[in-house]
């Protein structure tokens, strides 16, 4: 991997919530236009690391962070969080569309950036919905409430909402854990398609999902990265005993 294709460069990252040391000396590179999966048992810090990447941890009181995260040669912690988040989008575990129309949901981000022109907005909305493979299903219902969609559709709407910001990176925090297998499949197909344009970091509990969609996998335990490498390599020949135990289902 050449140096310029690194999107996130994480070095000696330590994070603690009050007394609780959540991330310990994390070093990680995330590559451009690849899907990187974070796996590991619950409470191992993978979601926390994900939230560091777009500084959502800022919202939590008494959260202490040391170390550096570079986003394309910029220190994440010296960037304006709002402009960082327009470049690094996020999709959450539970579908959380706003209680407004489908159109307004997707247009929310661009509107917050001050785009008011209706033509431009509707272009962005339709384009994003198409990219999120949702447009064909709901093209005649753009004015309907987003809450009238099914769970899987809502999650794709949330992805469309993130895409509407034209980010470079999309962070996904267990995006399919609240969905049924068919909706999950659709989202996975979508993620696979999206990596042509975006760098994707996904947290998942589902190891099959990690093997199916990711290019790189990081295995976390107790706040440390146990092993990080190409997915096929990590699942086939795990170098660490703990990784092997985890992926073969002996614990976790």
């Amino acid at each position, binding site marked *: 991997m050449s140096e310029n294709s690194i999107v996130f460069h994480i070095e000696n990252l330590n994070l603690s919530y009050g007394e609780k040391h959540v991330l310990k000396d994390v070093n990680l590179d995330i590559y451009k236009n690849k899907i990187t999966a974070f796996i590991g048992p619950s409470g191992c810090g993978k979601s926390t690391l994900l939230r560091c990447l777009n500084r959502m941890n800022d919202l939590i009181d008494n959260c202490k962070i040391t170390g550096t995260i570079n986003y394309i040669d910029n220190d994440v912690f010296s960037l304006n969080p709002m402009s960082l988040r327009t470049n690094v989008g*996020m999709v959450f575990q*539970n579908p959380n569309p706003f209680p407004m129309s489908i159109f307004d949901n997707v247009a929310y981000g661009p509107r*917050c950036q001050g785009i008011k022109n209706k033509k431009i907005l509707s272009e962005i909305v339709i384009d994003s919905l198409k990219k999120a493979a949702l447009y064909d299903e709901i093209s005649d219902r753009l004015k309907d409430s987003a809450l009238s969609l099914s769970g899987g559709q809502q999650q794709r709407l949330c992805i469309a909402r993130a895409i509407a910001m034209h980010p470079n990176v999309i962070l996904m925090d267990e995006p399919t854990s609240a969905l049924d297998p068919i909706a999950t499949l659709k989202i996975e197909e979508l993620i696979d398609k999206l990596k042509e344009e975006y760098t994707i970091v996904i947290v998942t509990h589902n190891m099959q999902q990690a093997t199916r969609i990711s290019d790189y996998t990081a295995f976390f335990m107790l706040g440390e990265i146990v092993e990080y490498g190409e997915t096929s390599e990590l699942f086939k020949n795990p170098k660490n005993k703990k990784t092997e135990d985890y992926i073969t289902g002996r614990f976790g």
Partner: protein
Amino acid sequence: MDNNEKKLKIRKIKDILLNGITYIFSSFGIVILIVLLTFIFSNGAKSLSWKTITSNYYEEAYFAKCETNEELTFSLEDGNDIYYSKVWGIGLKDSKDLENNPVVKIVYIDNLSPLKNALDQNTNERILVLKGQIIKRIQMVNTNGERSIISAKYGSQAIVDALDNSYQINELYYATMGGGIRGSLLTTLYLIFLTLIISLPLGIIASLYLSQFAKDNKLTKIIRSFIDMTSGIPSIIFGLVGVIVFIPIVNGVTSSSGGNIISGALTMTIMLLPTIIRTCEESLRAIPKSYTHASLALGASQTQTIMKVILPNSIPGILTSTLLALGRIIGESAALIFAIGSSIKDSISLTGSSTTLAVHIWSVLSGENPNYEQACAISILIIIIVLVLNVLVKLVSKKLNRFEVKS
């Protein structure tokens, strides 16, 4: 086995007992409410009319003079408790005013009646004598050329008899019917409007601070417990604050003297703020954190998140707190006796003293002979106002509730 069945039986009896208690207690409350409403409606419905609502409290007195000649007579038959004057062409009836005091009411004036040409005693200009007005006292010259005075307390029959004996009225003292509640109704509406205009923005902004910006530290805890404490203070103490603080301030700024609607609204504002702040805070907190996170993750600022996501979605809750506030404004009397005053007025201005419907009830009941019927009539009006506002707010809140998916 036997033991088990016994246990089951005991449990059943316990369940029945507990259920019975809940039924009895809830029906108790409903029965009281129904009795109260029936009492109010059966007593007040008679006295409540459009006229009560739209007319003034004070009678407006007029003094007129009038003459007629012997040739003009009217052929009118007494009947239906109405006594007609054949000479003057008017019909009088013993009636009661809006406050239930006996009065002599003009119920008929013939088109040719000489009273149509009555002149004002002081200005000598034409003055109208109308149906619905009440006669207080008549000073006239009878056919023998003697002066006589007859007042309303003799009743309409005696007045008509006296009138038919004379051709010249030196002084007709009559008045519009008083006892209406227009002034108090207007004051109540002004007060509601003004109080909400002041207290809602203050309350919403304060609750925004407490729910969105304030850190969970000692200071905010102290602020919260102070707010909770203020909502338990008796309203008469707020009335005192109104007298000591707000009345002097408003008097200093405007030309008013004594209690006025503005000072009343300010008093109600500090009284209502705790309730508004706490209920609004609850509704703002009820907005799922996931919305805030989603909005911030899309690069929105905190202000944008609040204005576009949090506030619009908590409107139903904010409206509920408005409803609570409304109820308290309409129902408050103790604090307002001080802050606005208890004198019933007909001409209402923001800086003048007047009284609300609730205090009107108080003054109607606190006189020498309490007038329960009018008190009940005003109560009905208050209940209707509360009901209408309730329905309105509910409708608006339903319309603005974005969580409800219309299928």
